[in-house]
């Protein structure tokens, strides 16, 4: 079971990333939970300065929203 986290402060891009990731998990049938992290100290602990950021199994794999196709590829690489 993998843990995917979307770090965000509530901006439109953060919510779009969260939405896209949730859709991808269903569509691709990944064994993963999706979590939305909004707590500032928790976000800072990952060392990112811009939100949203995408974390898979405690490793930051993307900052910003690089587009659904790229997100799918990045997560896929991270969990296989």
């Amino acid at each position, binding site marked *: 079971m993998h843990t995917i986290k979307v770090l965000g*402060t509530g901006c439109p891009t953060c919510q779009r990333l969260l939405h896209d990731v949730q859709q991808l998990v269903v*569509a691709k049938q990944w064994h993963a939970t999706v979590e939305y992290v909004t707590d500032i100290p928790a976000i800072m602990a990952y060392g990112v300065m*811009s*939100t949203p950021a995408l974390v898979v199994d405690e*490793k930051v794999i993307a*900052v910003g929203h690089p587009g*659904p196709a790229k997100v799918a590829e990045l997560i896929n690489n991270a969990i296989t």
Partner: protein
Amino acid sequence: MPESALKRPSLSIGWPLVLSAAAAWFLLYRLLQPFADWLTYGLLNLPVGSHLGESLAFFFYDVPKIILLLSGMIFLITVLRSFFTAEQARAWLGGKREGAGNILAALLGVVTPFCSCSAVPLFIGFVESGIPLGVTFSFLTATPVVNEVALAMLFGLFGWKVAGLYLVSGLTIAVIAGVIIGRLRLERYVEDFVWQVKVGQATVEQEKPSWEERFETAWESTKEIVGKVWLYVVAGIAIGAGIHGYVPADALAQALGKNAWWSVPAGVLLGVPLYSNAAGVIPVVHALMEKGAALGTTLAFMMSVVALSLPEMVILRRVLKPQLIGVFVAILAAAIVFTGYLFNMIL
């Protein structure tokens, strides 16, 4: 959603598509005036020189023109910004001294992709890594002041000289505000938790995006921003068109001209509640200027609209104590008023 739809979310945007779009853009831009004239005086058959005709021709010309300019400029600016990241900005600013650091911070603030919701993590990331408070403020001030929507609309309605003047004075204000805050040693008014946050080591090894990915991101932001502001643009231009056709020339020279000393601070005050509505405000201001309002007053008003924004202050309140927010707002307001007087005096 079926998997195939997720695999290919949109067609890939490469150089050929972007170049043909640019060609189509230029062609459309050339056709704007003939189209507006044809629509007003041909199709609607309004007499040339009538109030309604003047207003409508203005409206039909300005709406498509501004939407075209906005889309084009936001696309270009986003592509430019895809070459910069906040992490890189932090690395460049590390170890820079006051002065040079403030100037670099203001410049980077303009080109770094940044949404106001990132202000808090960015602020913490900057001060934690030892970047002086004043330099951090220069960065955070430049971003909203030199806002891409305002810049595109100023360019479209007032021309490149006014847009350039706005850009330079916005940068100057960001540098000065940062230097003053640095000198005042206000670190104690930063919320205490900020100094305790443990900032992790960024371990993102993100590959450089390809041109296709840059274009795709740019297209997404263009759609998002234009989708958000177009209604304000249309409303603003409609009001502006009414003023253009109906208000006699120089009617406002008394109230908003150079000699009305109180008009600059009044404009700044008026701009505060209109935050983030540069899109709707600029066409109205443009029409007012035609009727005798002074440029300095106008610029001060527009800066106040974008820079002194309540939502921005609410976000910053999470990391700053009220005293520091107060000082920040006071410095910004004073700098903007000063800029207004300066331009009224020299132009």
